[in-house]
């Protein structure tokens, strides 16, 4: 009796899981296997012309080559421009809007509104500011799309703006969990506003900031539309992030390089998740 019930439960469980497992098998694990395969075999330029084994040496050549390293460096710069600024501005907006005031909901709605804007929309929005022909700020040198030193910064700025809504919403939700008695007690102990912020508030919201850092890094690795729509990868390939370069390598003859770089991107995402976790874990205060 019990056994039959067990078998029925197994069958039901796998029936419920089947659709998800099929999707994951076909669109996550199969492509991972295929990336490894493509990276190890050079495809022929002729259609159906077969493939030639090139081995791990060829993968290493790509991952230590200029194309991959440049793309990685540009991606890291993009992260440097977007992650700390994103967190800092989210904290600023949330600190400003976390208070009892008449009509505060209106301000909170405004600050969270950029959630509605997709990467593509915010890229078009920022064309009105930074485009070299029509942008309002086209003559501001540190935002200029004409210079390899500033173009990436201009593209990154659109991401910072687009992410404002999300960072604000997350930090505000975290601030709302900080008990007011704690702040009052700190106040009575003679803690000034600055010390209260860094010694009481930041430790308490650090799990949320940690989460935010991870999310923003992941978004940074996935940045594409900003580059295509704002800079087109230029000038002088100075804004060609890793993903942007990978998307240009889809022809049969390029697949070996493209797949190797995709695996490199996978490795980086993995590594960052790991490093970030280790590093922040120690400083993050997990309450009970």
């Amino acid at each position, binding site marked *: 009796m019990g056994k039959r019930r067990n078998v029925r439960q197994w069958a039901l469980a796998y029936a419920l899981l089947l659709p998800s497992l099929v999707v994951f098998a076909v*669109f996550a694990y199969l492509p991972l296997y295929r990336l490894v395969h493509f990276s190890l075999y050079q495809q022929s330029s002729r259609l159906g012309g077969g493939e030639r084994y090139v081995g791990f040496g060829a993968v290493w050549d790509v991952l230590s080559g200029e194309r991959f390293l440049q793309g990685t460096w540009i991606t890291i710069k993009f992260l440097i421009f977007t992650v700390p600024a994103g967190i800092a501005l989210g904290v600023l907006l949330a600190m400003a809007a976390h208070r009892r*005031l008449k009509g505060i909901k209106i301000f909170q709605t405004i600050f969270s509104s950029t959630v509605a804007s997709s990467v593509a929309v915010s890229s078009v929005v920022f064309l009105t500011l930074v485009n070299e022909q*029509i942008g309002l700020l086209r003559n501001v040198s540190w935002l200029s799309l004409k210079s390899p030193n500033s173009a990436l910064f201009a593209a990154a700025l659109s991401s910072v703006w687009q992410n404002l809504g999300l960072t604000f919403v997350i930090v505000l939700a975290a601030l709302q969990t900080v008990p007011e008695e704690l702040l009052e007690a700190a106040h009575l102990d003679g803690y000034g506003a600055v010390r209260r912020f860094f010694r009481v508030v930041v430790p308490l919201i650090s799990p949320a900031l940690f989460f935010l850092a991870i999310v923003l890094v992941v978004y940074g690795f996935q940045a594409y539309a900003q580059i295509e729509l704002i800079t087109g990868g230029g000038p002088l390939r100075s804004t060609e992030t890793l993903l942007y370069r*990978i998307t240009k390598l889809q022809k049969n003859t390029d*697949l070996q390089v493209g797949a190797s770089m995709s695996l490199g991107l996978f490795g980086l*995402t993995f590594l960052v998740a790991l490093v970030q976790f280790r590093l922040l874990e120690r400083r993050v205060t997990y309450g009970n």
Partner: protein
Amino acid sequence: MATDAPRRGAAIGWYVLLSALSLIVLFPVWMTIARALSDGSATLFARTPSVLPYSPIQWDAFSRAFTEGGLGRPLLVSGLVTLIIVAAQTATAVGAAYAFAFLEFPFKRIVMVLCAATLLLPIEVTLIANIQTLQEVGLVSPSQGFGEAIGALTLPFLAQAFGIFLIRQGFLGIPKDLRDAAQLDGYSDLGFLRRVAVPVTRPVIGSFVLIAFLSAYNQYVWPRFSVKTNRWDTVQLALRRFGLDNPDQLNLGFAAAIIAALPVLVLLLVFQKQLIRGLTAGAVK
């Protein structure tokens, strides 16, 4: 009485600060509206850039985005694709979450780890291999028809790990008493799922639906490479059409960007609480 004045002064100070921050946050939106209303040539040849619309003001930019810019069709494609993805993701996630939360079966741990590990495999990493696969089965090609394009746009997203674990967490919050009572009442597993588990966790599922809508409607990279003909462009892809090389339609691109953001903006205003709960899931306990 005496303490009222400084407090009111502080309140005014906060209002000033909050208003200033609001202006900064909204300024790019204003610029987009201003350029949507400006004549394209005027924008292109203005000597000094202005924060105001250039005359002659073109009030019809938003309707012309549909008539000349052909934005209606991409909106329909986006609507259909989003609907399919959200419905499928919700259904598959509820099913899988139920299995993980309430059922015992062989290899449960391994299956859970395999599901969670897909979170480390975003579509950007697997992009070129997935496009290759869909090219081989004929879904991605320059001659792709309606069915093939919709298939290519939706198939990889019919299930997604984030939703599974979010909803599983919701299911795990159901009190054991409720389960026992349902069992005593003779509810089968599916009956419990349908009549108790789903209704009780409606807030969580609702938040997930909104998040799924947001990410399905807003995505760019996958559609960019799985749609090979602009006949099946989504709204986000259609934004590429309006370039600087055609001054007559320059402002239509900015109007299109505003139009593209409107559906999500409406959702945000109507379901603010649920959406925020979804966005902050995982960040705040």
